[in-house]
């Protein structure tokens, strides 16, 4: 007898629960993309928050880390700036991975600025190499290295270190690795940016080859390399030594 008193309550509860779970459905959507620009007065709270970081970043980017005795610009097939950067790639890779590195490369289009004459600040290196490319090592067969150098030749010649070659009809010829003729059956350790090793700039032949990485940014390597020269009282420089030449 008592039980029946609860029935209306239970029915009511069930109905209410059903109503609660009745789904709402998206029926209409209006979209808008706001361009963030100067029409929005900068939020003072956020400005305040950023201020100390901005000041210190600007100070850090303005920090002098080295010097040149003349301005350095990239050029094909070979340039002092390119040789400097490729040497840094090979030398710093060898040190960080604690291995002999036969050759180092820099993709020409990844060099984004010249270095001015005189003092170099950190910001110059960020402009030179804005990308966060990592240095990676790959063990490649001589025939794959030849294929890669043919690509380098077809593009007009990239900065190289540990390599000497001629470009004839957009093909690599007379290739020397560490002053010895390239052996198609030998295995070489090469240093590249992860961008190139991942097949960037049409370097497809490198893509399937396993990479060794230490999360070491090429830009950081450049900075460390330059700072070492500075400590030794030396400028950022390199000489042209016919690493890559055009031969018709």
């Amino acid at each position: 007898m008592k039980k029946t008193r609860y029935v209306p309550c239970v029915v009511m509860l069930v109905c209410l629960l059903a109503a609660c779970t009745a789904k709402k459905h998206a029926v209409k959507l209006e979209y808008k993309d706001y361009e963030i620009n100067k029409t929005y007065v900068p939020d003072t709270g956020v400005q305040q928050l950023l201020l100390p970081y901005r000041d210190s970043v600007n100070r850090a980017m303005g920090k002098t880390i080295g010097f040149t005795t003349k301005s350095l610009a990239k050029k094909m097939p070979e340039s002092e700036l390119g040789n400097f950067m490729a040497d840094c790639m090979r030398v710093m890779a060898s040190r960080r991975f604690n291995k002999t590195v036969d050759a180092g490369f820099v993709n020409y289009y990844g060099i984004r600025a010249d270095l001015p004459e005189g003092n170099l600040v950190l910001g110059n290196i960020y402009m030179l190499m804005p990308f966060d490319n990592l240095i990676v090592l790959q063990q490649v067969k001589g025939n794959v290295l030849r294929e890669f150098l043919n690509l380098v030749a077809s593009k007009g010649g990239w900065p190289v270190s540990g390599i000497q070659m001629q470009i004839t009809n957009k093909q690599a010829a007379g290739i020397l690795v560490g002053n010895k003729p390239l052996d198609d059956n030998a295995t070489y350790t090469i240093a590249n940016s992860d961008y190139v090793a991942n097949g960037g700039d049409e370097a497809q032949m490198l893509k399937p080859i396993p990479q060794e990485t230490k999360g070491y940014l090429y830009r950081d390597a450049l900075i460390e390399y330059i700072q070492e020269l500075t400590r030794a009282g030396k400028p950022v420089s390199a000489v042209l030594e016919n690493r890559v030449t055009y031969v018709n």
Partner: protein
Amino acid sequence: MLTDRREFLRKSMLAGGAVMASSMLPGFVHAATTHAVTILHTNDVHSRLDPFPMDGSKVQGQGGVAARASLIHDIRTKTSEVLLLDAGDIFQGTPYFNVYKGEPEIKAMSRMQYDAVTMGNHDFDAGLENFANQLRHASFPVLLCNYDFTQTPMEGKSQPYKVFKKGGVKIGVLGIGIELKGLVPDNLFGNTKYNDPVVAANATADLLKKKEGCDMVICLSHLGDKYEDNRLSDEILAKESYDIDLIIGGHTHRFFDVPRTYKNKRSSDVIVNQVGWAGLQLGRLDYVFSAEKNKNLVNANTVAIGKKPSD
């Protein structure tokens, strides 16, 4: 004793019923009550805290976190039901990141009251331990349902989804990350296990709709909108999904002119949107929900899309 217990139960049921009845009353009175929710979103901001420098480039003076914060504040003063989301790659791209490893980025986002974010591949760039450490400054959760962070510094620091209640609408937000192998150096993602995004997103969305009773499911994705080859993308995920209503994408830095609409496995609309990169834009999606009974909706839901008139 027994009577007391029954009496207690009866009273609490009535009380509970009364509360629910009052809260549901508007719904009963107006059968076609609508609910509005505003979704604001960014992706691939890449440490662009300052506006682009005045160097003659096309985007000079654009972007900047302080201007974005001011815009978001303006919108919040006019619309209370706002969900602010980011689809990853918060980090990397300016010296701020090189120096501070993401601290000002996370602090600024907390100040803007972001509700949730997912991780992009570049958020691993200073290592997982760094990302986990920077989350000390975060007032928002990191959502990921397809990365298993067991035995990594991120273990227990992300969650697969979060449910929000906005304007009477229950919204489930989940996060999806891109395959890390080949994209992020092995030593940076460490023991992170990558699980199939489609499987994980569908399972999580199913849970959100069925168990959590969500009215809408949003997927924050760092897969990329679409590719020339058959790589997994938001487009593929949208078509392979069952319960996702909206995908806020990233990774491909695409500026969409119009949000894209796909049909999911149930022939319902899935919207995909992305707003380029560098904090140059803030995306806004004003949704209107209807509680109107419609039997067909279970199988197929269509959303009418239009450009928001300027306000």
